[in-house]
């Protein structure tokens, strides 16, 4: 927006992270930004009285050191991946995009981004977990782009590249990098790794326009996916969340048919699917903050602390969409959230 500072006009640097390579890199990328030294990122990021949406109009960057825990068990809000060894970590808190349905606006007080520069500590934690997994017969899956969009930051900080280089060749370990970014070009020169799944979240154009207005347009994402598949990467498509607007069936069926004219479904690793759902506390907090998105003023059910489309509507819509998807993707590659 005009009259506002550009994103990352200010970089807040924890005193403890001065001299880390990622700190130096970030500071060199934003040499004209104002640098403010801080004691602890939480003094800034967690303080009350912030307005998430207003801050999103001029996001600031906070460079900090992650303390334990470095690895978290996956939430029951994501699909089952056929292994109990599923985790996520947080190289970055918050996202450069600002999708209407995103739980981050209810999870965090701040719209600013925190980058943890001690990635080695997070990588060591994965190594420790992999050496003693919950189920040794199954691989360990770590989502590294869970509370952020890592690839979207690649031109600013090449974190995806560093994580791919770290994981490549490790046994029984898979990293998922979930994104809405069109920046595949930023990692295109890397040899595809069997340890990495690049997951793109896709929505039909009307949903993108209304609820994902700050993310790249659908066409750019599809081009990035095609490029990743052509280069030999494992690609997951995430139709998640499915937003059940009035004419959802027509919109989603047309979208899927057109999408799979461009993408060969059999080349995909898998596809995930799930309706809009959110932790009740996050949902209520977003509502209270006077969000401008109509998503938060519809009727939902509450199941085990999760605000979710009611079960009948959810099951029938998921079945309908799975039926359409099976025209393009083998059924055993379709993972559905319908708890």
């Amino acid at each position: 927006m005009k009259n506002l500072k550009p994103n990352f006009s200010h970089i807040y640097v924890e005193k403890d992270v001065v001299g880390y390579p990622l700190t130096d890199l970030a500071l060199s990328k934003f040499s004209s930004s104002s640098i403010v030294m801080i004691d602890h990122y939480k003094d800034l990021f967690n303080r009350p009285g912030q307005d998430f949406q207003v801050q999103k109009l001029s996001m600031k960057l906070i460079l900090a050191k992650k303390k334990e825990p470095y690895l978290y068990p996956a939430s029951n809000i994501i699909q089952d991946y056929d292994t109990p060894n599923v985790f996520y970590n947080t190289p970055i808190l918050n996202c450069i995009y600002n999708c209407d349905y995103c739980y981050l606006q209810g999870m965090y007080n701040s719209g600013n981004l925190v980058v943890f520069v001690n990635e080695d500590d997070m990588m060591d934690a994965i190594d420790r977990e992999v050496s003693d997994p919950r189920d040794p017969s199954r691989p360990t899956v770590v989502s590294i782009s869970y509370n952020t969009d890592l690839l979207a930051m690649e031109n600013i900080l090449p974190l995806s590249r560093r994580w791919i280089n770290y994981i490549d060749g490790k046994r029984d370990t898979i990293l998922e990098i979930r994104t809405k970014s069109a920046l595949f070009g930023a990692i295109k020169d890397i040899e595809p790794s069997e340890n990495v799944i690049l997951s793109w979240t896709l929505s039909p154009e009307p949903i993108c326009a209304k609820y994902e207005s700050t993310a790249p347009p659908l066409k750019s994402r599809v081009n990035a996916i095609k490029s990743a598949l052509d280069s030999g990467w494992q690609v997951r498509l995430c139709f998640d969340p499915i937003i059940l607007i009035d004419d959802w069936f027509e919109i989603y069926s047309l979208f899927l048919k057109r999408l799979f004219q461009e993408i060969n479904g059999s080349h995909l690793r898998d596809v995930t699917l799930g309706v809009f759902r959110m932790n009740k506390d996050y949902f209520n907090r977003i509502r209270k903050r006077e969000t401008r998105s109509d998503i938060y003023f519809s009727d939902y059910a509450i199941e085990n602390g999760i605000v979710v489309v009611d079960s009948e509507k959810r099951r029938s819509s998921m079945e309908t969409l799975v039926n359409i998807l099976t025209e393009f993707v083998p059924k055993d590659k379709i993972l559905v959230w319908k708890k």
Partner: protein
Amino acid sequence: MQCIITALKAESDPFIQYLGLKRDKAFNFPYFINNDIGIALIGVGVGRKNIRARIHKFFRSFDDTVIQFINIGVAGGKKNQTRIGQLFLINKIIDDSTNQTYYPDILIDHPLIENSITTVQRGVYDGGGQYDSLVDMEASEIFSVCSKIVPIHNIAIIKLVSDHMETHESEFDHDMISSLLMGKMDKITYFIDKYKLLGRINGPILSKTDMDWITHNKEQYLLTVTQVNQLMNTVKSYRLHNSSISLPEINAKRPMTKVDQKNIFRAIREKLET
């Protein structure tokens, strides 16, 4: 409404004059306002003692109005880092007595140089060697008080260097301070004007008229607390889709039974959803 907070009369006078503020006797402390431009000024005196009470009194006198607080005043600067008359927008405030640190949100694109400031209990007259940058006696208390009543992005601190921490405050020259501030008035008012934009972002979805409509229908149709909450969400959804269309008139009879009441409630929501 924007509220300028000053400590000294020498700081208030240039704004009163430049912005055409008129004395208002609503409070028993210096209070000036120009309703046409939506700017008020309150004087809080030197140091912390009056800040909380005066800001609260001012704040409570405005219902349903977005308030932006802007502390504008003089500060001591380090001789080797600052020039007398130099203007700064503050991006970090350290309270010297509690070690608490505050970070104003700087979202507006502004032409000012940014700096940090330490708020001290007593004046500093030895050159301020122990402080990193600027020094004043009010900023941390003002930020602390205001941040509990308005969002952080609606608080700004602007400081002008009046001395190099070698001058006792009783020796401050009123005319010199006023004249230094007047000399920077274009820059300050440019900031104030731009800053106003932030106050307009993300206000409440429902207007007072919308809220009155909900209250009227709640009373008329004996709606329960749960129904009022549901109605509130439906009205918000309606307002997001119809920014300027009035809410529909509901002409049902007052319910006599629970079934009646539920049917009327359903009908109201359906009317809003179509």
